[in-house]
Protein backbone atom coordinates (compact mmCIF):
# COMPACT_ATOMS: atom_id res chain seq x y z
CA UNK A 1 0.00 0.00 0.00
CA UNK A 2 2.75 2.41 0.99
CA UNK A 3 4.82 1.36 -2.02
CA UNK A 4 1.89 1.93 -4.34
CA UNK A 5 1.29 5.38 -2.86
CA UNK A 6 4.97 6.22 -3.26
CA UNK A 7 5.06 5.14 -6.87
CA UNK A 8 1.90 7.10 -7.60
CA UNK A 9 3.34 10.28 -6.04
CA UNK A 10 6.56 9.84 -7.98
CA UNK A 11 4.59 9.71 -11.24
CA UNK A 12 3.00 13.07 -10.62
CA UNK A 13 4.37 16.22 -12.15
CA UNK A 14 5.64 18.92 -9.78
CA UNK A 15 2.77 20.65 -8.04
CA UNK A 16 0.24 17.90 -8.78
CA UNK A 17 0.54 16.09 -5.44
CA UNK A 18 -2.23 16.61 -2.87
CA UNK A 19 -2.63 15.42 0.71
CA UNK A 20 -2.91 11.60 0.40
CA UNK A 21 -5.89 9.84 1.93
CA UNK A 22 -7.92 12.99 2.50
CA UNK A 23 -10.93 14.38 0.64
CA UNK A 24 -10.20 17.52 -1.33
CA UNK A 25 -11.68 20.87 -0.35
CA UNK A 26 -14.01 20.53 -3.35
CA UNK A 27 -15.10 17.05 -2.17
CA UNK A 28 -15.97 18.42 1.27
CA UNK A 29 -17.90 21.38 -0.13
CA UNK A 30 -19.74 19.21 -2.68
CA UNK A 31 -21.25 17.19 0.21
CA UNK A 32 -22.73 20.27 1.91
CA UNK A 33 -26.49 20.70 2.17
CA UNK A 34 -26.70 24.30 0.92
CA UNK A 35 -24.56 24.35 -2.22
CA UNK A 36 -21.81 26.86 -2.86
CA UNK A 37 -21.60 29.38 -5.71
CA UNK A 38 -19.18 29.11 -8.63
CA UNK A 39 -16.47 31.22 -7.08
CA UNK A 40 -16.21 28.61 -4.32
CA UNK A 41 -16.59 25.56 -6.60
CA UNK A 42 -13.58 26.21 -8.81
CA UNK A 43 -9.81 25.73 -8.75
CA UNK A 44 -7.00 27.79 -10.24
CA UNK A 45 -3.68 26.32 -9.09
CA UNK A 46 -0.55 26.78 -11.14
CA UNK A 47 2.94 25.37 -10.55
CA UNK A 48 5.36 28.30 -10.49
CA UNK A 49 8.73 26.64 -9.87
CA UNK A 50 10.50 25.19 -6.86
CA UNK A 51 13.62 27.32 -6.46
CA UNK A 52 14.41 28.89 -3.08
CA UNK A 53 13.29 32.49 -2.45
CA UNK A 54 16.46 34.53 -1.84
CA UNK A 55 16.38 35.94 1.70
CA UNK A 56 17.97 39.37 1.09
CA UNK A 57 14.56 40.87 0.33
CA UNK A 58 13.61 40.43 3.98
CA UNK A 59 16.92 41.55 5.45
CA UNK A 60 18.40 44.30 3.33
CA UNK A 61 17.41 47.95 3.99
CA UNK A 62 18.45 48.80 0.42
CA UNK A 63 15.87 46.30 -0.87
CA UNK A 64 13.21 47.95 1.31
CA UNK A 65 14.16 51.33 -0.17
CA UNK A 66 13.88 49.86 -3.65
CA UNK A 67 10.40 48.54 -2.82
CA UNK A 68 9.32 52.02 -1.73
CA UNK A 69 10.68 53.55 -4.93
CA UNK A 70 9.16 50.95 -7.24
CA UNK A 71 6.47 48.54 -6.11
CA UNK A 72 4.70 50.81 -3.62
CA UNK A 73 4.56 53.57 -6.23
CA UNK A 74 3.02 51.33 -8.89
CA UNK A 75 0.51 49.09 -7.12
CA UNK A 76 -3.10 49.46 -6.00
CA UNK A 77 -3.25 49.78 -2.23
CA UNK A 78 -6.22 49.62 0.14
CA UNK A 79 -6.23 53.12 1.66
CA UNK A 80 -9.53 53.21 3.59
CA UNK A 81 -13.13 52.10 3.43
CA UNK A 82 -15.81 54.28 1.89
CA UNK A 83 -17.52 54.26 5.28
CA UNK A 84 -14.55 56.28 6.63
CA UNK A 85 -15.58 59.19 4.39
CA UNK A 86 -19.38 58.98 4.03
CA UNK A 87 -20.10 62.66 3.24
CA UNK A 88 -18.73 65.21 0.78
CA UNK A 89 -15.78 66.95 2.42
CA UNK A 90 -14.93 63.98 4.66
CA UNK A 91 -11.31 62.90 4.52
CA UNK A 92 -9.12 60.09 5.88
CA UNK A 93 -5.33 60.26 5.95
CA UNK A 94 -3.60 57.13 4.60
CA UNK A 95 0.14 56.67 5.01
CA UNK A 96 2.47 54.16 3.37
CA UNK A 97 5.89 54.56 4.97
CA UNK A 98 6.83 58.20 4.26
CA UNK A 99 4.09 58.61 1.64
CA UNK A 100 0.88 60.24 2.88
CA UNK A 101 -2.44 60.93 1.19
CA UNK A 102 -5.61 62.78 2.10
CA UNK A 103 -8.39 60.53 0.82
CA UNK A 104 -11.29 62.93 0.28
CA UNK A 105 -14.87 62.58 -0.93
CA UNK A 106 -15.23 65.55 -3.26
CA UNK A 107 -18.69 64.61 -4.59
CA UNK A 108 -21.23 61.93 -3.75
CA UNK A 109 -19.58 59.48 -6.14
CA UNK A 110 -16.11 60.92 -6.47
CA UNK A 111 -13.16 60.29 -4.17
CA UNK A 112 -9.69 61.77 -4.61
CA UNK A 113 -6.32 61.11 -3.01
CA UNK A 114 -4.21 64.24 -2.54
CA UNK A 115 -0.52 64.05 -1.75
CA UNK A 116 -0.58 65.26 1.85
CA UNK A 117 1.79 68.22 1.64
CA UNK A 118 1.39 71.99 1.31
CA UNK A 119 2.73 73.25 -2.02
CA UNK A 120 4.35 76.18 -0.22
CA UNK A 121 7.01 74.72 2.06
CA UNK A 122 5.77 71.16 2.34
CA UNK A 123 3.96 70.92 5.68
CA UNK A 124 1.47 68.07 5.92
CA UNK A 125 -1.98 69.56 5.41
CA UNK A 126 -3.48 67.01 7.79
CA UNK A 127 -1.73 64.98 10.49
CA UNK A 128 -1.18 61.28 9.79
CA UNK A 129 -3.67 58.82 11.20
CA UNK A 130 -6.52 61.30 11.28
CA UNK A 131 -9.98 61.80 9.85
CA UNK A 132 -12.33 64.72 9.65
CA UNK A 133 -14.33 66.92 7.37
CA UNK A 134 -13.05 69.93 5.51
CA UNK A 135 -14.55 72.86 3.66
CA UNK A 136 -11.01 73.70 2.59
CA UNK A 137 -7.55 72.26 3.28
CA UNK A 138 -5.71 75.05 5.03
CA UNK A 139 -2.07 74.70 6.01
CA UNK A 140 -1.47 75.28 9.71
CA UNK A 141 1.92 76.93 9.02
CA UNK A 142 1.24 79.97 6.79
CA UNK A 143 -2.40 79.44 5.90
CA UNK A 144 -2.22 78.60 2.22
CA UNK A 145 -5.43 76.82 1.37
CA UNK A 146 -7.01 74.48 -1.19
CA UNK A 147 -10.61 73.76 -2.06
CA UNK A 148 -11.73 70.19 -1.49
CA UNK A 149 -11.61 69.64 -5.26
CA UNK A 150 -7.87 70.29 -4.99
CA UNK A 151 -7.82 73.68 -6.70
CA UNK A 152 -5.74 76.38 -5.04
CA UNK A 153 -7.91 78.73 -3.00
CA UNK A 154 -5.60 81.28 -1.44
CA UNK A 155 -1.98 82.28 -0.99
CA UNK A 156 -1.41 84.31 2.16
CA UNK A 157 0.14 87.68 1.10
CA UNK A 158 -0.41 86.85 -2.53
CA UNK A 159 1.45 90.07 -3.47
CA UNK A 160 4.70 88.38 -2.45
CA UNK A 161 4.17 85.40 -4.75
CA UNK A 162 3.64 86.76 -8.27
CA UNK A 163 5.33 83.55 -9.46
CA UNK A 164 2.58 81.36 -7.95
CA UNK A 165 -0.06 80.83 -10.61
CA UNK A 166 -3.14 79.37 -8.89
CA UNK A 167 -3.99 77.23 -11.91
CA UNK A 168 -0.61 75.50 -11.54
CA UNK A 169 -0.95 75.01 -7.81
CA UNK A 170 -3.69 72.40 -7.60
CA UNK A 171 -2.91 69.56 -5.16
CA UNK A 172 -1.24 66.63 -6.95
CA UNK A 173 -3.29 63.44 -6.87
CA UNK A 174 -2.84 59.71 -6.83
CA UNK A 175 -5.42 57.62 -8.67
CA UNK A 176 -8.46 56.34 -6.81
CA UNK A 177 -10.83 53.47 -7.51
CA UNK A 178 -13.29 51.63 -5.31
CA UNK A 179 -14.45 48.05 -5.13
CA UNK A 180 -16.67 46.45 -2.51
CA UNK A 181 -16.60 49.53 -0.31
CA UNK A 182 -12.78 49.62 -0.32
CA UNK A 183 -10.97 52.72 -1.52
CA UNK A 184 -7.80 51.81 -3.43
CA UNK A 185 -5.13 54.27 -4.52
CA UNK A 186 -2.23 54.02 -6.94
CA UNK A 187 0.57 56.58 -7.38
CA UNK A 188 1.29 55.44 -10.93
CA UNK A 189 -0.67 57.40 -13.56
CA UNK A 190 0.11 54.63 -16.07
CA UNK A 191 -1.01 51.70 -13.92
CA UNK A 192 -3.81 49.49 -15.27
CA UNK A 193 -7.35 50.14 -14.04
CA UNK A 194 -8.11 48.38 -10.75
CA UNK A 195 -10.46 45.92 -12.47
CA UNK A 196 -7.72 44.88 -14.90
CA UNK A 197 -5.16 44.76 -12.09
CA UNK A 198 -7.40 42.37 -10.10
CA UNK A 199 -8.41 40.47 -13.23
CA UNK A 200 -11.78 39.35 -14.55
CA UNK A 201 -12.14 36.12 -12.56
CA UNK A 202 -10.95 37.42 -9.19
CA UNK A 203 -13.02 40.58 -9.58
CA UNK A 204 -16.13 38.43 -10.07
CA UNK A 205 -15.37 36.85 -6.69
CA UNK A 206 -15.02 40.23 -5.00
CA UNK A 207 -18.20 41.51 -6.62
CA UNK A 208 -20.12 38.45 -5.42
CA UNK A 209 -19.31 39.14 -1.77
CA UNK A 210 -20.95 42.60 -1.71
CA UNK A 211 -18.44 43.79 0.90
CA UNK A 212 -19.79 47.30 0.40
CA UNK A 213 -22.71 46.12 2.56
CA UNK A 214 -20.46 45.45 5.54
CA UNK A 215 -19.22 47.83 8.21
CA UNK A 216 -16.12 47.81 10.40
CA UNK A 217 -17.17 46.31 13.69
CA UNK A 218 -13.66 46.05 15.20
CA UNK A 219 -10.30 47.46 14.05
CA UNK A 220 -7.04 46.50 15.76
CA UNK A 221 -3.52 47.46 14.73
CA UNK A 222 -0.12 46.37 15.97
CA UNK A 223 3.48 46.79 14.90
CA UNK A 224 5.13 43.42 14.22
CA UNK A 225 8.85 42.60 14.59
CA UNK A 226 9.41 41.46 11.02
CA UNK A 227 9.61 42.60 7.42
CA UNK A 228 6.13 43.29 6.01
CA UNK A 229 6.38 40.39 3.55
CA UNK A 230 7.03 37.82 6.29
CA UNK A 231 3.89 39.05 8.06
CA UNK A 232 1.76 38.59 4.94
CA UNK A 233 3.24 35.22 4.13
CA UNK A 234 2.47 33.92 7.62
CA UNK A 235 -1.21 34.09 6.67
CA UNK A 236 -1.00 32.74 3.11
CA UNK A 237 -1.07 29.06 3.97
CA UNK A 238 -2.81 26.64 6.33
CA UNK A 239 0.32 24.46 6.36
CA UNK A 240 1.38 26.03 9.67
CA UNK A 241 -1.86 25.24 11.51
CA UNK A 242 -0.90 21.82 12.94
CA UNK A 243 2.30 23.14 14.57
CA UNK A 244 1.40 26.77 15.33
CA UNK A 245 -2.27 26.42 16.27
CA UNK A 246 -2.68 22.91 17.72
CA UNK A 247 -5.89 23.99 19.43
CA UNK A 248 -7.50 24.65 16.04
CA UNK A 249 -6.26 21.65 14.07
CA UNK A 250 -9.00 19.23 15.22
CA UNK A 251 -11.60 21.29 13.36
CA UNK A 252 -9.64 22.56 10.35
CA UNK A 253 -9.00 20.83 7.02
CA UNK A 254 -5.48 22.24 7.00
CA UNK A 255 -3.35 19.81 4.94
CA UNK A 256 -6.20 19.43 2.41
CA UNK A 257 -6.88 23.16 1.99
CA UNK A 258 -7.17 24.47 -1.56
CA UNK A 259 -4.78 27.05 -3.07
CA UNK A 260 -5.42 29.18 -6.15
CA UNK A 261 -3.68 31.94 -8.09
CA UNK A 262 -5.40 34.48 -10.34
CA UNK A 263 -3.21 36.52 -12.66
CA UNK A 264 -0.36 38.48 -11.07
CA UNK A 265 -2.03 40.18 -8.14
CA UNK A 266 -4.61 37.90 -6.51
CA UNK A 267 -4.35 34.50 -4.86
CA UNK A 268 -6.39 32.62 -2.29
CA UNK A 269 -6.89 29.59 -0.15
CA UNK A 270 -10.05 27.84 0.96
CA UNK A 271 -9.52 26.13 4.29
CA UNK A 272 -12.51 24.09 5.36
CA UNK A 273 -13.65 24.30 8.95
CA UNK A 274 -15.76 21.84 10.90
CA UNK A 275 -13.76 18.90 9.51
CA UNK A 276 -10.88 16.95 11.06
CA UNK A 277 -7.33 17.81 10.08
CA UNK A 278 -5.79 14.99 7.98
CA UNK A 279 -2.96 15.08 10.54
CA UNK A 280 -5.41 13.88 13.17
CA UNK A 281 -7.47 11.24 11.34
CA UNK A 282 -8.46 8.50 13.78
CA UNK A 283 -7.54 10.60 16.78
CA UNK A 284 -10.56 12.89 17.20
CA UNK A 285 -14.32 12.36 16.94
CA UNK A 286 -16.91 14.46 15.18
CA UNK A 287 -18.04 15.73 18.59
CA UNK A 288 -14.44 16.79 19.30
CA UNK A 289 -14.50 18.78 16.06
CA UNK A 290 -17.61 20.56 17.16
CA UNK A 291 -16.29 21.25 20.63
CA UNK A 292 -12.99 22.66 19.46
CA UNK A 293 -14.19 24.78 16.58
CA UNK A 294 -12.86 28.28 17.10
CA UNK A 295 -14.75 31.17 15.62
CA UNK A 296 -13.41 34.56 14.66
CA UNK A 297 -16.58 36.23 15.75
CA UNK A 298 -17.88 33.96 18.48
CA UNK A 299 -19.59 36.86 20.26
CA UNK A 300 -22.34 36.20 17.72
CA UNK A 301 -22.74 32.65 19.06
CA UNK A 302 -24.08 33.22 22.55
CA UNK A 303 -24.01 30.24 24.90
CA UNK A 304 -25.50 27.69 22.51
CA UNK A 305 -24.30 24.10 22.99
CA UNK A 306 -24.06 21.85 19.92
CA UNK A 307 -24.05 18.06 19.68
CA UNK A 308 -23.45 15.66 16.79
CA UNK A 309 -26.05 12.89 16.50
CA UNK A 310 -25.01 9.31 15.75
CA UNK A 311 -23.80 9.05 12.15
CA UNK A 312 -23.89 12.81 11.60
CA UNK A 313 -21.03 15.21 10.93
CA UNK A 314 -19.91 18.21 12.91
CA UNK A 315 -19.80 20.26 9.71
CA UNK A 316 -23.47 19.60 8.93
CA UNK A 317 -24.57 20.43 12.46
CA UNK A 318 -22.63 23.67 12.48
CA UNK A 319 -23.89 24.80 9.08
CA UNK A 320 -27.48 24.23 10.16
CA UNK A 321 -27.17 26.13 13.38
CA UNK A 322 -24.80 28.93 12.41
CA UNK A 323 -27.17 30.24 9.81
CA UNK A 324 -29.83 31.05 12.35
CA UNK A 325 -27.45 32.29 15.00
CA UNK A 326 -25.55 34.65 12.73
CA UNK A 327 -28.80 35.93 11.26
CA UNK A 328 -30.05 36.73 14.73
CA UNK A 329 -26.79 38.21 15.99
CA UNK A 330 -26.20 40.45 12.98
CA UNK A 331 -29.85 41.09 12.03
CA UNK A 332 -29.30 39.95 8.45
CA UNK A 333 -30.80 37.44 5.99
CA UNK A 334 -28.39 34.55 5.33
CA UNK A 335 -30.93 32.07 3.93
CA UNK A 336 -29.24 31.93 0.51
CA UNK A 337 -25.69 31.73 1.84
CA UNK A 338 -23.99 28.35 1.31
CA UNK A 339 -22.66 26.17 4.11
CA UNK A 340 -19.16 26.77 2.83
CA UNK A 341 -19.45 30.55 2.93
CA UNK A 342 -20.85 30.30 6.47
CA UNK A 343 -18.17 27.97 7.80
CA UNK A 344 -14.98 28.04 5.79
CA UNK A 345 -11.96 30.30 5.85
CA UNK A 346 -11.57 32.06 2.49
CA UNK A 347 -8.39 34.07 2.36
CA UNK A 348 -7.48 36.30 -0.59
CA UNK A 349 -4.43 38.47 -1.11
CA UNK A 350 -4.70 41.51 -3.36
CA UNK A 351 -1.07 42.44 -3.94
CA UNK A 352 0.57 44.12 -2.11
CA UNK A 353 -1.18 45.20 1.10
CA UNK A 354 -4.68 43.73 1.17
CA UNK A 355 -5.92 40.48 2.64
CA UNK A 356 -9.63 39.69 2.41
CA UNK A 357 -11.60 37.03 4.29
CA UNK A 358 -15.14 37.22 2.91
CA UNK A 359 -16.56 34.23 4.85
CA UNK A 360 -19.31 34.73 7.40
CA UNK A 361 -17.62 33.10 10.40
CA UNK A 362 -14.29 34.87 9.71
CA UNK A 363 -15.42 38.20 8.28
CA UNK A 364 -12.08 39.97 8.25
CA UNK A 365 -9.69 42.20 6.37
CA UNK A 366 -5.98 42.39 7.05
CA UNK A 367 -3.71 45.18 5.90
CA UNK A 368 0.08 45.11 5.95
CA UNK A 369 2.42 48.07 5.54
CA UNK A 370 6.17 48.47 5.95
CA UNK A 371 7.40 50.54 8.90
CA UNK A 372 8.80 53.79 7.54
CA UNK A 373 11.86 53.70 9.77
CA UNK A 374 12.74 50.02 10.00
CA UNK A 375 12.60 47.34 7.30
CA UNK A 376 12.53 44.74 10.11
CA UNK A 377 9.17 45.98 11.34
CA UNK A 378 5.74 46.38 9.83
CA UNK A 379 2.25 47.59 10.64
CA UNK A 380 -0.44 44.91 10.77
CA UNK A 381 -4.14 45.66 10.99
CA UNK A 382 -7.13 43.38 11.53
CA UNK A 383 -10.57 44.69 10.64
CA UNK A 384 -13.68 42.66 11.42
CA UNK A 385 -16.54 43.39 9.05
CA UNK A 386 -20.16 42.67 9.82
CA UNK A 387 -23.16 42.95 7.53
CA UNK A 388 -24.99 46.26 7.80
CA UNK A 389 -28.20 45.48 9.73
CA UNK A 390 -31.40 44.78 7.80
CA UNK A 391 -32.95 48.06 8.98
CA UNK A 392 -30.25 49.79 6.91
CA UNK A 393 -28.81 52.03 9.62
CA UNK A 394 -25.06 51.84 9.05
CA UNK A 395 -23.08 52.08 12.31
CA UNK A 396 -19.99 54.30 12.33
CA UNK A 397 -16.82 52.32 11.59
CA UNK A 398 -14.97 51.30 14.75
CA UNK A 399 -12.04 53.45 15.78
CA UNK A 400 -8.71 51.62 15.48
CA UNK A 401 -7.30 50.15 18.68
CA UNK A 402 -3.51 50.53 18.56
CA UNK A 403 -1.82 47.79 20.57
CA UNK A 404 1.65 48.33 21.96
CA UNK A 405 4.39 46.01 20.67
CA UNK A 406 4.31 43.99 23.90
CA UNK A 407 0.53 43.58 24.06
CA UNK A 408 -1.53 40.50 23.24
CA UNK A 409 -4.31 40.64 20.66
CA UNK A 410 -6.53 39.30 23.43
CA UNK A 411 -6.16 42.68 25.16
CA UNK A 412 -8.00 44.54 22.38
CA UNK A 413 -11.50 45.34 23.65
CA UNK A 414 -14.03 43.40 21.56
CA UNK A 415 -11.55 40.79 20.29
CA UNK A 416 -12.69 37.19 20.71
CA UNK A 417 -10.18 35.69 23.20
CA UNK A 418 -9.77 32.47 21.22
CA UNK A 419 -9.08 34.31 18.01
CA UNK A 420 -6.79 36.82 19.73
CA UNK A 421 -4.72 33.86 20.94
CA UNK A 422 -4.44 32.56 17.35
CA UNK A 423 -3.17 35.95 16.16
CA UNK A 424 -0.63 35.98 19.00
CA UNK A 425 0.65 32.57 17.86
CA UNK A 426 0.97 33.78 14.26
CA UNK A 427 2.67 37.04 15.11
CA UNK A 428 5.05 35.50 17.65
CA UNK A 429 6.37 33.22 14.90
CA UNK A 430 7.30 36.05 12.55
CA UNK A 431 9.69 37.75 14.96
CA UNK A 432 11.57 34.48 15.36
CA UNK A 433 11.51 34.02 11.58
CA UNK A 434 13.01 37.47 10.95
CA UNK A 435 15.80 36.80 13.43
CA UNK A 436 16.33 33.26 12.16
CA UNK A 437 16.70 34.38 8.55
CA UNK A 438 19.37 36.81 9.73
CA UNK A 439 21.13 34.05 11.67
CA UNK A 440 20.79 31.33 9.03
CA UNK A 441 23.66 29.77 7.10
CA UNK A 442 21.15 29.12 4.28
CA UNK A 443 20.59 31.69 1.56
CA UNK A 444 16.88 31.35 0.96
CA UNK A 445 13.44 30.04 1.87
CA UNK A 446 12.33 26.62 0.62
CA UNK A 447 8.63 26.33 -0.27
CA UNK A 448 6.09 23.56 -0.74
CA UNK A 449 4.84 23.31 -4.31
CA UNK A 450 1.16 23.37 -3.45
CA UNK A 451 0.52 24.57 0.09
CA UNK A 452 2.97 27.49 -0.21
CA UNK A 453 2.14 28.52 -3.76
CA UNK A 454 0.73 31.84 -2.57
CA UNK A 455 4.05 32.79 -1.01
CA UNK A 456 5.86 32.04 -4.28
CA UNK A 457 3.18 33.82 -6.31
CA UNK A 458 3.46 36.89 -4.09
CA UNK A 459 7.25 36.98 -4.32
CA UNK A 460 7.26 36.48 -8.09
CA UNK A 461 4.92 39.44 -8.49
CA UNK A 462 7.11 41.45 -6.13
CA UNK A 463 10.12 40.64 -8.33
CA UNK A 464 8.32 42.01 -11.37
CA UNK A 465 7.81 45.39 -9.66
CA UNK A 466 11.09 45.71 -7.83
CA UNK A 467 12.99 44.80 -10.99
CA UNK A 468 11.41 47.72 -12.83
CA UNK A 469 12.80 51.23 -12.69
CA UNK A 470 10.75 53.82 -10.82
Amino acid sequence: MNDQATIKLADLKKGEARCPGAPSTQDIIAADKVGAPGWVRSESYQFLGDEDIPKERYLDPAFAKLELDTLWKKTWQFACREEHIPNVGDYHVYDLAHYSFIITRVAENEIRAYYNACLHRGTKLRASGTEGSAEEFKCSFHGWSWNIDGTHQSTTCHWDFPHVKPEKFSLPQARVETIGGFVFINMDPKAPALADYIGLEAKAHLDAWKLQDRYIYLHVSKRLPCNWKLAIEAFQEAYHVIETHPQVAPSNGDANSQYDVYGEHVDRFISTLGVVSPHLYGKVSEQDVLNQFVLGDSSAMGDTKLTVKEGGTARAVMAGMFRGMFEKATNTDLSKVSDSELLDCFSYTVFPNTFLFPGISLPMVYRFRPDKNDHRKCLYEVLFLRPVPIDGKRPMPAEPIHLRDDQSFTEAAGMDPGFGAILDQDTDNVGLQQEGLEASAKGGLTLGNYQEIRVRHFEQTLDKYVGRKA
Partner: protein
Amino acid sequence: MNTQGHSATSDCYTRVLKLSELAPGTKKVVEVGGKCVLVCNVNERLYAISNVCSHNEKPLERGRVGNGWIACPAHGARFDLATGAALNLPAKNPIATYPVQVVDDWIEVLVERAAAAS
Protein backbone atom coordinates in the same frame (compact mmCIF):
# COMPACT_ATOMS: atom_id res chain seq x y z
CA MET B 1 -29.52 58.04 26.63
CA ASN B 2 -26.33 58.11 28.64
CA THR B 3 -25.01 61.43 29.80
CA GLN B 4 -21.78 62.44 31.39
CA GLY B 5 -23.20 61.95 34.85
CA HIS B 6 -21.58 64.28 37.35
CA SER B 7 -22.77 64.58 40.88
CA ALA B 8 -23.26 68.37 40.87
CA THR B 9 -26.66 69.51 42.04
CA SER B 10 -29.26 70.12 39.41
CA ASP B 11 -29.74 73.82 40.16
CA CYS B 12 -26.20 74.66 38.95
CA TYR B 13 -27.09 73.36 35.48
CA THR B 14 -28.48 75.61 32.76
CA ARG B 15 -31.24 74.42 30.47
CA VAL B 16 -30.01 74.89 26.93
CA LEU B 17 -32.13 72.84 24.53
CA LYS B 18 -35.10 70.51 24.43
CA LEU B 19 -33.83 67.00 23.83
CA SER B 20 -36.16 66.86 20.80
CA GLU B 21 -34.29 69.81 19.29
CA LEU B 22 -31.06 67.82 19.07
CA ALA B 23 -31.60 64.83 16.80
CA PRO B 24 -29.20 61.85 17.02
CA GLY B 25 -26.05 62.58 15.03
CA THR B 26 -26.42 66.37 15.27
CA LYS B 27 -24.85 69.17 17.31
CA LYS B 28 -25.78 72.73 18.26
CA VAL B 29 -24.02 75.77 19.64
CA VAL B 30 -25.46 77.37 22.77
CA GLU B 31 -24.33 80.30 24.89
CA VAL B 32 -24.00 79.52 28.58
CA GLY B 33 -22.65 82.15 30.99
CA GLY B 34 -20.75 83.89 28.22
CA LYS B 35 -19.18 80.66 27.00
CA CYS B 36 -19.76 79.22 23.57
CA VAL B 37 -20.69 75.57 24.18
CA LEU B 38 -21.18 72.88 21.54
CA VAL B 39 -23.71 70.20 22.52
CA CYS B 40 -23.38 66.95 20.54
CA ASN B 41 -25.75 63.97 20.36
CA VAL B 42 -23.65 61.07 19.08
CA ASN B 43 -23.94 57.29 19.44
CA GLU B 44 -26.75 57.65 21.99
CA ARG B 45 -24.72 59.91 24.21
CA LEU B 46 -24.69 63.66 24.90
CA TYR B 47 -21.51 65.69 25.16
CA ALA B 48 -20.97 69.40 25.88
CA ILE B 49 -17.62 70.86 24.86
CA SER B 50 -16.09 74.25 24.24
CA ASN B 51 -16.79 75.36 20.69
CA VAL B 52 -13.33 76.88 20.39
CA CYS B 53 -10.38 74.89 19.02
CA SER B 54 -7.36 75.06 21.33
CA HIS B 55 -5.00 75.28 18.37
CA ASN B 56 -6.16 78.34 16.46
CA GLU B 57 -9.34 79.43 18.27
CA LYS B 58 -11.46 78.52 15.27
CA PRO B 59 -15.04 77.33 15.97
CA LEU B 60 -15.52 73.56 16.06
CA GLU B 61 -19.24 73.65 15.29
CA ARG B 62 -18.88 72.67 11.61
CA GLY B 63 -16.41 69.91 12.44
CA ARG B 64 -17.00 66.22 11.83
CA VAL B 65 -17.99 64.08 14.81
CA GLY B 66 -16.70 60.51 14.81
CA ASN B 67 -16.76 57.70 17.33
CA GLY B 68 -15.96 59.75 20.44
CA TRP B 69 -14.13 62.64 18.74
CA ILE B 70 -14.65 65.91 16.91
CA ALA B 71 -12.30 67.21 14.19
CA CYS B 72 -11.69 70.93 13.76
CA PRO B 73 -12.65 71.83 10.19
CA ALA B 74 -9.86 74.41 9.90
CA HIS B 75 -6.67 72.37 10.36
CA GLY B 76 -7.86 68.92 11.41
CA ALA B 77 -7.05 68.87 15.12
CA ARG B 78 -9.22 66.28 16.87
CA PHE B 79 -10.47 66.27 20.44
CA ASP B 80 -11.87 63.55 22.66
CA LEU B 81 -15.52 64.46 23.23
CA ALA B 82 -15.55 63.01 26.75
CA THR B 83 -12.29 64.40 28.11
CA GLY B 84 -11.47 67.28 25.75
CA ALA B 85 -7.96 65.89 25.24
CA ALA B 86 -6.24 66.81 21.97
CA LEU B 87 -5.79 63.65 19.87
CA ASN B 88 -3.48 64.93 17.15
CA LEU B 89 -1.51 67.86 15.81
CA PRO B 90 -1.77 70.71 15.23
CA ALA B 91 -3.48 70.85 18.67
CA LYS B 92 -1.74 69.80 21.85
CA ASN B 93 -3.84 71.49 24.54
CA PRO B 94 -7.25 70.15 25.57
CA ILE B 95 -10.56 71.94 25.14
CA ALA B 96 -13.01 72.43 28.01
CA THR B 97 -15.76 69.87 28.49
CA TYR B 98 -18.89 70.41 30.56
CA PRO B 99 -21.14 68.06 32.50
CA VAL B 100 -24.45 67.53 30.72
CA GLN B 101 -27.69 65.92 31.88
CA VAL B 102 -31.28 65.51 30.80
CA VAL B 103 -34.06 66.64 33.16
CA ASP B 104 -37.71 66.70 32.09
CA ASP B 105 -36.67 66.35 28.43
CA TRP B 106 -34.37 69.36 28.74
CA ILE B 107 -30.67 69.16 28.03
CA GLU B 108 -28.86 70.90 30.87
CA VAL B 109 -25.21 71.95 30.88
CA LEU B 110 -23.07 72.85 33.88
CA VAL B 111 -20.74 75.79 33.24
CA GLU B 112 -19.12 77.09 36.41
CA ARG B 113 -19.38 80.78 35.63
CA ALA B 114 -23.02 80.43 34.67
CA ALA B 115 -23.74 78.83 38.02
CA ALA B 116 -22.01 81.66 39.89
CA ALA B 117 -23.92 84.31 37.98
CA SER B 118 -27.36 82.80 38.57
